[in-house]
């Protein structure tokens, strides 16, 4: 199998690759959004704690 035929997906390239693309976008979003939000929240809480100590 050539690389070209792999990407062509027997003429169904649009349907197959759009499906995989959307899937990975959704899964990555659901994985990384809480990580980013947690880091932001921890930073805010740390700032608050510093202010409280003074």
């Amino acid at each position, binding site marked *: *199998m050539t690389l070209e035929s792999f990407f062509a997906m027997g003429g169904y390239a649009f349907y197959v690759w759009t*499906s995989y693309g959307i899937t990975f976008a*959704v899964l990555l979003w*659901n994985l990384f959004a*809480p990580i980013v939000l947690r880091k932001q929240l*921890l930073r805010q809480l740390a700032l608050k704690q510093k202010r409280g100590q003074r």
Partner: protein
Amino acid sequence: MSFIPAPLSRFFHRTASPPHFYALADKLVPWLTVLFLLLLIPGLYGGLVAAPADYQQGDSYRIIYIHVPAAWMSLFIYVLMAVMGGIALVWRMKLAEVMLISSAPIGAGFTFVALVTGSLWGKPMWGTWWVWDARLTSELILLFLYLGVTSLYGAIEDKRSAARAVSILALVGVVNIPIIHYSVEWWNTLHQGPTVSKMDKPSIHISMLIPLLLMAGAFKLYYAIAVLQSAKLELIKREPSAQWVKSLLENKA
């Protein structure tokens, strides 16, 4: 928990306490990630490269390797949420509430993926993006249930009462799960019948079945990783001024 032996009950309470659970999640995630990749990479290779094209559907059938595992996850996560809801209602266990609410966006994601990839598969095979048949409609209702859980939880200010409300919603909505599962048998639909769960003689070739099972395993592990990340955030959100969060901040600084 009177019918559970005391040492076991103690074990549950300790593991379920936020600081223990937070630390446990941190320990588990690297291992889960390795396992996830060990299933995902051969699963994708098997599905997209190694497995032969379908004799009827050509290469379009390769959408099955995400569509079916995503649809399975959409049902699996909802059942888990209903179980968590039951535990939260009966024992008022905080961790069950946190796991329930943390699961909802991930379940919604999988449901969305199942619907969209199904649509992208349906267009070339059935000639239509969407039909209002039993399988598709009940899966769409599942998406609304997931979104309903998240928005109901967000709408109620007091998080303990919010958790009670979503627990009840999760339990009531579980009636939709068997409807989705059996819809292709109970009603005449455009959606094809089960190919894998006919255990005696699955109507799918082994070279196509193995990548499908690998992808299903990979999606399960993805859920475990993602729900732990989401639960860690929710635990801090719930009690931002708790002692364990303070010591967490001191360790980071």
